[in-house]
Structure formats: structure tokens, C-alpha cells
């Protein structure tokens, strides 16, 4: 059985399936649909969803709620991510599990509110001070809006870190026909709190790359949260050794677990000298272009990146075997291609196909500009 839904609806469905029970957001095209759906749907499962006075408050509400044990999400677009910036840092520092949806529109500034773009890809990674890692997932279609939203909650809970879902106006708002059965019953990670008896130290970790145990406000233990560089008790510190340990921990807990985070689809063809690397909505054109090229007898490989950050380096490097040309189509002036470039072996040429005029990159453009005719 099929139904007609858009990515925004699939994201909401995924969030509810994943146990999301708190949402705060501020209206912004093209992310508003998610806010409106959440406001209507979350109360049905005992959750809370509200429109905050601005994007900063949206993040603040979510972070506060997360510290009481709620599973939280917010959604915005590029200009909203700008306003989220300081609280993204807070969520990293305080180790707050949360999901942030970025329905990308054309920038810079207010740019094109109703215009598709993929211009936030580096911004999401480097969007707050300090440069500490976050996780960014990017769905290519409506089904993946559901499954990757579920995955985002899973990773947020696992690593106590903000996880972004980088989508775009087209994916979120284009109605698609989907198989109802494809919204499978994905596993949901249970929130494991610190044992109720015994000592609890808010930011004590068993290993530098593991997140601390959680105890909610109002729970069995006293919980201290701080935006400042802190020791394991959540008390401000300037002791160099403690500062180093904290900061290295914030990086290691994400970067040491690429095997748990990395998600790609490698559609590699033996003998191919050309590889297309894509993500998000652009992948849909790539799939058609690759199919057409193969029908015409061209050998071509394709790598779809679902986990943009941290960069799935192992999978990207593996896809380079035998490749001379790498085509990276993006709805920006070349952002993820920077990551591809730094990983590519000598002699491999990177070809960017870039559009920033609000139009999608078409399969034909990939065939022509990518030399796949």
C-alpha cells in the first residue's frame, strides 16, 4: 500500500517512533511544517511541543527539557542555525543528546526562503566556537527522512551529543509516493540512566571516548550542568590537565566511534574509473544518471554519504580504488568536495558539479558535466 507524504511528515513520524517527547521551534520557511506537525502530533503521545519566542529560546527549551530526561528535537533552516550556534556549543559542552533538523534553504542571510540549497554542510560541522565535532546525517528521500531521524535520536542518545539531520526544501516539502510498509519498526535505544544507588558524578566517564552516565533533574541524584570548562563534578575548572581531558573527551567520544556512526551506500562497479560521491537530494539525480550511464555501457561507481560528519573516511577511501575521476555534485559552490579532495590519492581528479541558482542538478547535467555520456 502506498501513500502520498513529504519529508517533513516522515521526519515527524521518525521522531515520534524514536521516542521524541519534547519539541520546540520557531517558524521559518521551509522548516515550519515540522513545527506545526509536532505541535499537533506530540500531545497524542504525551509529549510537549511549543513555538518559542525565537530560535535561541527553541534551543534553550530543548536543552533544559533534555536535562530532565526528555528526548528532544528542534527544526529550523540556515538562518535559524545561525541563531542556534551558541546553544549548539552549549549542547556539546554539556553533553546534551538532541536532534536538530536543518531544512536547508538558499543562503547567505535570508537568501531564498523557498529555494533549495545544500549550503550548510560545512556550517553544520563548524557552526559553533571551539571546533568540536557533531554528527550530521543527510537523507536523500522521504523514507530516509524517517529512518535517519530515528538513527539521529539513536546516535544522540548513544554519544550524548547534538545530531543534525541535514535535509533541504525539496526533500522536506516535495510530496512523494511511498510504500507504507517501508516505515519499518526500527529499533529504539532505551535511555539508560545512572543507577539510583551509589555515587553519581555528573561528568565522570569510564573511558575518554565514552559519554558520561545521565541522571535527570528530579531523579535520584543531584545533577550539575555547566556551559563552562568543568571537572567531572560539573564545577568550573582551569586546571590544565582537567581542561585537556574534557576537551579531548568531547572530540574522542565522536571521532573514536566512526564504525558506529558511518553510513554510506557504496554502489561500486568493478572496472569503473569514475566515481560519483553525493548526499541529500542530489543523490536522486545521481542514481538516475548512473543508471543511464550504465545502460549505455559506461562503468561508473556511486557512493552515497548518509553520515556527512564525522567524515566516513574509511568508506570514501575504499571507494577510490581504481578511480581516476570523482564527480561531486552539490547545491553549493563546493563544500563536501573539500573533504573528498583531502582524502583522494594523488592523480585522482575531483570534478564538482555545482548549482546555486535554486534549480536542482539534473541527471543530464551529471552525465554531461561528469563526462558520463
Amino acid at each position, binding site marked *: *500500500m*502506498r*501513500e*502520498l507524504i513529504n519529508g517533513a*511528515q516522515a521526519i515527524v*513520524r521518525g521522531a*515520534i517512533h524514536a521516542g521524541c517527547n*519534547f519539541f*520546540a521551534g520557531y517558524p521559518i*520557511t521551509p522548516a515550519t511544517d515540522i513545527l506545526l506537525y509536532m505541535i499537533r*502530533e506530540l*500531545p*497524542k*503521545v504525551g509529549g*510537549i511541543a*511549543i513555538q*518559542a*519566542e525565537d530560535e*535561541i*529560546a527553541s*534551543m*534553550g*527549551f*530543548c*536543552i*533544559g*527539557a533534555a*536535562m*530532565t*530526561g*526528555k528526548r528532544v528535537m528542534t527544526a529550523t533552516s540556515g538562518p535559524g542555525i545561525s541563531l542556534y550556534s*551558541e*546553544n549548539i556549543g*552549549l549542547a556539546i559542552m554539556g553533553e546534551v543528546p538532541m536532534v536538530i533538523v536543518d531544512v536547508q534553504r538558499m543562503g547567505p542571510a535570508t537568501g531564498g*526562503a*523557498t529555494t533549495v540549497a545544500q549550503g550548510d554542510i560545512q556550517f553544520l560541522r563548524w557552526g559553533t566556537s571551539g571546533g568540536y565535532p557533531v554528527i550530521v546525517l543527510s537523507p536523500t528521500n522521504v523514507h530516509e527522512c524517517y529512518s535517519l531521524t530515528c538513527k539521529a535520536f539513536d546516535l544522540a542518545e548513544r554519544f550524548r551529543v547534538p545530531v543534525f539531520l541535514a535535509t533541504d526544501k*525539496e526533500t522536506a516539502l*516535495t*510530496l*512523494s*509516493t511511498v510504500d*507504507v510498509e517501508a516505515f519499518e519498526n526500527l529499533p529504539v535505544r532505551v535511555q539508560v540512566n545512572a543507577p539510583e544507588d551509589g555515587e553519581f558524578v555528573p561528568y565522570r566517564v569510564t573511558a575518554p571516548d565514552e559519554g558520561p552516565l545521565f541522571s535527570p*533533574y*528530579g*531523579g535520584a*541524584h*543531584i*545533577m*550539575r*550542568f*555547566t*556551559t563552562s570548562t568543568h571537572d567531572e563534578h560539573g*564545577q*568550573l575548572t582551569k586546571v590544565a590537565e582537567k581542561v585537556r581531558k574534557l576537551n579531548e573527551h568531547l572530540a574522542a567520544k565522536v571521532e573514536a566511534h566512526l564504525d558506529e556512526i558511518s553510513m554510506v551506500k557504496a554502489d561500486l562497479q568493478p572496472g569503473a574509473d569514475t566515481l560519483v560521491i553525493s548526499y541529500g537530494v542530489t543523490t*536522486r*539525480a545521481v*542514481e*538516475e544518471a548512473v543508471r543511464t550511464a550504465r545502460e549505455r555501457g559506461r562503468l561508473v561507481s556511486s557512493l552515497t554519504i548518509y553520515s556527512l560528519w564525522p567524515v566516513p573516511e574509511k568508506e570514501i577511501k575504499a571507494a577510490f580504488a581504481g578511480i581516476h575521476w570523482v564527480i561531486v555534485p552539490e547545491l553549493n559552490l563546493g563544500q563536501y568536495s573539500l573533504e573528498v579532495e583531502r582524502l583522494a590519492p594523488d592523480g585522482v581528479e575531483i570534478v564538482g558539479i555545482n548549482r546555486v541558482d535554486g534549480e*536542482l542538478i*539534473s541527471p543530464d547535467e551529471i552525465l554531461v558535466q561528469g563526462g558520463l555520456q
Partner: protein
Amino acid sequence: MSNQAVMTYLDETLLPYFFCPGCGHSLITDHLNATLVKLQLDPHKVVIVTDIGCSGLADKYFTTNAFHGLHGRSVTYATGIKMANPKLKVIVLMGDGGCGIGGHHLINAARRNIGVTVVVFNNFNYGMTGGEHSVTTPPGGLTSSTPFGQLEHPMDICQTVAVNGASFVARTTSFDKGLPDLLVAAIQNEGFSLVDIWELCTAYYVPNNRFNKSLLESTLTTLNFPTGIIHQSARPEYSQAYCQSVAEEAGKKPMPALPIQPRYKSDLDRRLGIVIAGAAGKKVNSAATLLCRGALLSGLWATQRNDYPVTVKSGHSVSEVILSSQEIGYTGITKPEIMLLLFKEGLSTVHSQLDAMTENDSLVINRDLLPIQTRAKVIPIDFKQTSHWAYRKEYWTIIALARVLHEMHIYPLEAFKEAVSARAEFAEDNLAAIEAGERLESN
């Protein structure tokens, strides 16, 4: 919690306070401790949320839960905490600086009447960054960033939140022996409470202005800022009001799938790109969705992407629909097989698609927009021939689509009619419009 009375909520091992000698923060922190002792709250059920600035150092001394957040945002974290767990007592400690940068949040917390208590450590300047002026610096006040005297009017924090819906508002000084009782009343109030406490910054404001306790008190008089309980009102507390307002939703199935059972058959064996170029407010998007629903009823796959300006009822409105016998990946249309050009507003955005169309493609066009340069087969529609529909432009898309389906046999017109009927909204008019579209062909 044991039955034994709690004698202090301070972690004695961390004392004395880290505040400057003579700083009002020490007095207020003592008063807050006395307040908590009076209230005998379970420390597990109390969250002290602090802002940035010297007042932000205060939470560390308390044995309650603590949240030390970003500058001016403390009220937002407190709101999230209270919304998520209304059983908690949430107390915000912030300075006059936080009230400035976070003024928007203060106003909105008051408007909601969210059940948190805000304690303002108001010493008229930024003690942590070097004594710059704040929103409460009195007129003429000398600070590092107003070396020639403060020109701005001091913000009346109390009146600001009072006129915006706070349910308990009080002002006093850190020297007030009755402060714990005032704070008890503030915390016991179910809704939003704010207590503005005027105090001395001995690092900056005192030396820079030869300020002291009596000048502080006379400033209150000069500015005509009253003290004591300034405002009280009985309004529903927000987290409770929210729970009540959504109570009836509980247990309903969230976002259920609305599958469309195919009941008709289509002979379409390829991908068909249909562009509907219209004007905003003319139901172009909703008609396109009905076209898609009819396609699903006929066993086809459909996608619909819309393009429109930021305005709602003016400018163009274009829907791009793809119908296919197979699953659809890429949703763009470079060369439409069918274009419906119904309103002049739509014309400007579809030029390149129009140019790409060939003699195998069809342009269904509002006669008023002729002549037009195209290689496509032109099928004009004269909406003047549709009797009263000529004046009901929001049905033109349905009429044109009915004609297309009737003439080109993409899928049965009955499926379109069923899609229209399945949506209670405007079903009757839409059905009549479809029939008008059918009749067009025979004209």
C-alpha cells in the same frame, strides 16, 4: 528525603564565596539559602539555573541541582526544565546584564506565566568583564563604557515583566532583612515570579560612582521605582495550562498512515512530467495534490514539488507533478510532457521548461495568454465558456486537469473524481468543476 530538617543548602566545603569583599552577591546568596531553609524543599526537586556574570558563580555553592547556561538564556533553560517536569522548583539567578541580553526571554516567560522564579542580582554594571554599563545603570552613572555618564534610561525590570503577564513581581535591596520572606512568596507563587534585588558592586560601581547603601536607596526614590511586592495576579501557570489544553489529544494515534488503495487502472508506461503554472491563492497546489491522489488510486507513483514566492496570496504558484508506473527518484522536470499555463503570474518562472517542450508535448493554455511562442501542441481553454466558473478562478486548475485527463487518458477521470470526493473540503464544487472540464472537450 529524610524527615530531619535541612539546616543549610550550601556546600560548606566550598565556602567562603568567591565574590569580592562587600559584594552584594554574598548577601543575596545567603538570603537564598535562608529562603530554601524556610521552604525545606527536597534539593533533588530544586534546579538553580544561573546566567553569565558574577551571579553565575552562585549555583556552585548549592546542594541542589544546577544548570549554568549562556548569557541571557537562563530563562529559556528554566522554561524547558519546568515544561518538561512541572514538579521541579526552578529558580533562575541572573544579573542586570542577563536581563539586558535576555530581555526578550524575560518578557516571554512573563507572558507565558511559566512557573519559574527569577532572582535578579542588580548591581547596575557588568562586574565580570570590567564594569561596563548595563540596562539598569542609573542616569549619569559612570562605568568603564560610559566614562562621560550614562545617557540611557534605566530599564524598569519589574514593570517590564508586570505589564507582560508576570504573576508575582517584587523589588528590594540586598540589605532587606525581609528578603527571604519575599523570596519564599515568590517561589511559592505557581506562575512566573521575579524579584529585582538592588545591590552594590564593590569592584566597579561603588568606587566609580562613590556609590553606597544610602545612594542606592535614594536612587530608587529619584527614579520613582517602588519597592516591596509591586504586582500580583492570578493567571494559569503555563506548564499546567499546556497540559490541560492538550489533554484530549492523549492516546490518539500520531500521524497515522493514510494509504491509498488502487481501485483504477492506468495504461501509463512511462514517466510523465506535468507543470502547472498558476498564481498564488488559486488552489494550484491543492489541485495538483488531487491529481497525485488520483494517480495513486490508479496504481501509479506520483511526486509533487511546489514553487512559490514567500508571499501567500500574490505572485506565482507552480506545481511540478511527475506521474509514473515506477518509483520516482529525481523529482525535477527539465522538459515537461504537459504544461498547464493558466495564469500570467506563472509564465515568468516556466520559460526554460516551455522552451524545452517539443511537438510531442502539450501546452494547455488559458486562451487569454495567447499568442505564445512554443513548439508544443497548443490546447487553448476558454474559461469564459465555462459559465459561472469563469469567475471562480480557484477552480480553473481542476477544470484544466479534468480536461487533460479526459483527453489524454493518463488515468481514468473517475479516479480523479474519487480523489476529489475523498477530501470533504470543497468536494462538491471540485466535482462540478471536473464536469465543467469534461464538457470543455466536446465544445
